[in-house]
């Protein structure tokens, strides 16, 4: 039986800039920041209350899985906003939204009531969309 998700990947354009965004804007903690063989940087962050879920901030680069052309295409798609980073939960969507806006986080939708709760939609500094959701049972 699978019990949880431990790692998931968010492709970013620049790891230093992404780390600044996820750490200093969203308030995530650094999980691992390790230089690996082949100059690959293993960089993970996690929401303070959920160290069990590590978000891997990875740059699409030419390597074993991507050709140079594929990596460039993925970078281009990130910049176009074709990818979603996921859904981040909060106890109070409006309050968190206000805090993040004050920090300069870009939102493409302010908090609105949905069937599943209150949701705002933001965008990270690479171009990945994310939802900020206050679940319906917390309203």
């Amino acid at each position: 039986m699978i019990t949880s998700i431990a790692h998931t990947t968010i492709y970013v354009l620049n790891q230093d800039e992404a780390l600044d965004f996820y750490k200093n804007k969203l308030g995530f903690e650094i999980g691992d920041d390790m230089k690996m063989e082949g100059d690959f940087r293993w960089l993970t962050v996690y929401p303070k209350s959920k160290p069990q879920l590590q978000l891997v901030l990875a740059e699409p680069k030419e390597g074993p899985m991507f050709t140079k052309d594929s990596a460039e295409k993925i970078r281009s798609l990130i910049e176009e906003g074709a990818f979603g980073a996921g859904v981040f939960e909060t106890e109070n969507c409006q309050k968190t939204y206000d805090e993040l806006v004050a920090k300069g986080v870009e939102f493409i939708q302010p908090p609105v009531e949905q069937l599943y709760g209150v949701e705002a939609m933001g965008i990270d500094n690479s171009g990945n969309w994310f939802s900020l959701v206050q679940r319906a049972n917390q309203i």
Partner: protein
Amino acid sequence: MTTNYKLERLNAGRDYIAANYQAPLSLSGMAEYSYMSPHHFLRVFKDTYGETPNEFLIRLRVEKAKKMLITENMSVSEICEEVGYISLGSFSSLFLKQVGMAPTLYRRKLWALSTEAYRFPSQAIPACYAYHFLGNKG
């Protein structure tokens, strides 16, 4: 007070533990090297060194494991066996008690403090990522 002769015998027992910490050691086996009964060895060892033979053994094993967690590309299970434990659960519990954090967390924290020049091996990250980014098929 421990006499010089007694201290030499005691040191022989202590050296035996230090040289064989990877092996299963019994109190009677340790005491034999000091020509003492197990009870006497335990009492004199504690009085002289401030810790029991078993506490000394655990400390040696944990210190060795700490070093290996940082310098060796071995799994925690392999290190557990290498320092003389059969049960990973017992080793992890002892490590947590001695160091204040589990072996894996200790390793990660020390890695995070490593110098810029150090390159971690592909085994340090989940295999699917290692394969994806580094081409390592494990």
